[in-house]
């Protein structure tokens, strides 16, 4: 009975709704214009490698969209719940079950958004997983519970367990190619300031390249549960100037340094020969 009385009331509600929708749509656009080129960080760090900054920008744009779509949906939920809360026990609203235009709209728009997100993802992903020519190569071996860094073509060797936090020394502004392996279980190579992580897995050689934009010491640690001392499996990445890097590399060319290198590599190659990756040690990016 009351359904016949409803349509006249409907018209003003609908007009009000369109005005309100326009307002909601205008808000984030206005916010973006005000913010100009500097988007908020949304909790992440800008990153200290070239690729990590691309990842960071992807993060910002995902967050902008998430804020708009999430905020809009959140507002819609609260609006629907509070605006239409029960007025009386006896009122039965119009039993509307379908509204095809609306349903099509909220299927098509998400698909378009997804296509955009996927395109942006592809662009950044290709940058991150690219392995450009790199003048510096570091072999990283993760083990329970520490890290070993060796540099093919030199006697440089850094080795340490848990909170000893061994330091991987690399030059700033140069591509650094990492060959990542594990000698026992799965570990995670993660440097927060580089916005990047990769599993170190037995039987698999993982390769990636990055280019640190500034000197400094960056904290890294294992992210994949690897047993008892997982939470203490630290390392550091020390980014120095290319000149300082060459000096550091040559500092191992002493009899003691060579002996230590030979001892460590022989011992570990016997221990882990069957565990290391299938590809040869001298990989594509190395000099």
């Amino acid at each position, binding site marked *: 009975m009351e359904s016949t009385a409803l349509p006249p009331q409907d018209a003003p509600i609908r007009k009000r709704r369109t005005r309100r929708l326009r307002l909601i749509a205008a808000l984030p656009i206005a916010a973006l214009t005000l913010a100009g080129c500097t988007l908020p960080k*949304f*909790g*992440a760090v800008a990153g200290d490698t070239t690729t*990590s900054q*691309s*990842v960071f920008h*992807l993060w910002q744009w*995902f967050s902008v969209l*998430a804020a708009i779509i*999430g905020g809009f*949906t959140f507002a*819609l*939920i609260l609006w*629907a*719940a509070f605006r*239409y809360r029960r007025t009386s026990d006896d*009122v039965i*609203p119009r039993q*509307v079950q*379908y*509204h*095809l235009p*609306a*349903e099509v709209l909220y*299927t098509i728009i*998400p*698909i378009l958004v*997804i296509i955009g997100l*996927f395109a942006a*993802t592809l662009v*950044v*992903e290709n940058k*991150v*997983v690219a392995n450009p020519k790199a003048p510096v190569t570091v072999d990283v071996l993760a083990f329970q519970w520490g890290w070993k860094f060796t540099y093919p073509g030199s006697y440089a060797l850094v080795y340490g367990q848990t909170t000893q936090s061994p330091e991987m020394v690399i030059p700033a502004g140069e591509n650094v190619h990492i060959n990542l392996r594990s000698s*026992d*279980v*799965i570990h*995670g190579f*993660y440097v*927060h300031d580089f*916005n*990047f*992580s*990769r*599993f170190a*897995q*037995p*039987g*698999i050689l993982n*390769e990636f390249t990055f280019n640190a934009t500034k000197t400094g010491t960056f*904290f890294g640690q*294992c*992210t994949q*549960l690897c*047993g008892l*001392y*997982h*939470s*203490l499996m*630290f390392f550091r990445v020390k980014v120095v100037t290319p000149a300082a890097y060459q000096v550091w590399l040559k500092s191992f060319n002493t009899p003691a340094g060579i002996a230590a290198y030979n001892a460590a590599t022989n011992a570990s190659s016997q221990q882990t020969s069957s565990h290391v990756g299938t590809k040869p040690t001298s990989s594509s990016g190395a000099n």
Partner: protein
Amino acid sequence: MTDVLDPTHVHEEDHGHEEHHGPTGILKWMTTTDHKVIGMSYTITAVMMLVIGGLFAEIIRAQLTSPNSGLVSLAQYNELFTMHGSVMIYLFAGPFAFGALANFLVPIQIGAPDMAFPRLNALSYWLYLTGCLTMLSGFFTSGGAANFGWVGYAPLSNSMNSPGAGADLWIGALLLTGFSAIFTGVNLTATIFYLRAPGMTMFRMPIFTWNMLVTGILILLAFPVLTAGLIMLYCDRHFGTHIFSVAGGGVPVLWQHIFWFWGHPEVYILALPFFGMVSEIIPVFSKKPTFGYKGMIFATLTIAALSLGVWAHHMFTTGVVLLPFFSAMSLLIAVPTGIKMFNWIGSMWRGQVWFSTAMLMAIGFVITFLIGGITGIYLASPPLDFFTHDTYFIVAHFHSVVMALVLGAMGGLYYWGPKMTGYLLNEKIGKSQFWFLFIGTQVFTFPQYLLGLRGMPRRMAVYPHDPQWQFLNQLSTLGAVLIGISTILFVVNVAVSWKKYPAGDNPWDGHTLEWFTTSPPPHHNFYRLPKIRSERPTWDYNHPEHKALAHGHNNDGVNA
């Protein structure tokens, strides 16, 4: 009573409820094949598992309030988070959804007297209970419980790295609960396909039953894979095979493929039943039909289909999977999930929204799931997954999702509990429980998102190098305490409301068949059935002049 039809479905008038002789008391619970009693057993067991898993969580959170806490040792901490995850995923969320509520409701919602295979149903429950006890008994072995995370990644889970009996008990428990789930999947699928009452066509089934059908099919596709993987793992541990060991020519990453080929459908095996619960609760408390009923069903089917092709988004950082394919498939899941989200909003739109506890829980579910869903979209993008993988961002993301499920579960208990027991729960305590649970969830997860973005990895017993994480961790612990209080309030509510507020047959003006029968329903569920001419037979019977409108137009109730 012209609407009562089909004498073949009038089971109880033949011999009457009193004449149903059988054992009573504890013997009844142990020997029953009645889906309602089994459903109650599942409910009680699953809620106990929720409490046990929650206790583990509280200890974990207490440990993290200071960077170098010695509350538990490193080894104990690994056991605790492994068992927290395992208990919550394998023993609470799944069994509560497809064991407890589905068992109780699906036959009633389609007008059936019982499940298709009542004895198999009983076997499912006993396998499940045995699985629960098997998994928890790990704590009483000399080596402690399983400690390699709920995902049990090889080779950490092999006999060299995890030699204890706790690991074997974990595998055994997963085999038991896995078979329990498979049998329940068989039962649900068969029941829904073959035991629907006359008039109950597929497109007149309640959304909850639809979601349980899809869940049942997903269980049949996914769980055998996990079971096979577990047998391989057990053979590696004890019979000298080398399926997951590099030294013997095996491939450790195969475990991840097998695990996540089960694990991602499992996410939807967990979520779809709760989507279904919310899809029932919101329309009833808005006094409207489910908005976009058919769209909702196709969204469910799409989610299920996509869920079988996205497992490797858990493995982006392994470096051995095809990133663009799995990224695109994972992003696509946002579309049908968004359709559901807007259909829930559409169901409230211009309705008469009644803020009962069940409805509050459902709205809390929608909001929390929105947060979990949107953060999930980030993780479908490999570059963003690289820098958040295995950090607290992931932990926060899936806790937003699973805490939404807990809100949905509580909504389901407040909504259907009266049907199961015949008595309502106290609404005042229920509402305070909602606020503790809802606010607690957000206070619990938001600091974790920030912690992840600041670089805190998951599964950390201590974080001595970065005390700046302490404040956010303490905030998260505060959230966990609020959630704990909400659970206590639920237990208090059950105790306070015990047999106090009789519910009657239809306390919420429900839509579906379970609200047509008595609370609790009689032995074979129905004394009589209404005409089933839409997906809201009980509503149509009670409000014949308010049938659903086809596509927003006034018509005379013809709803094809």
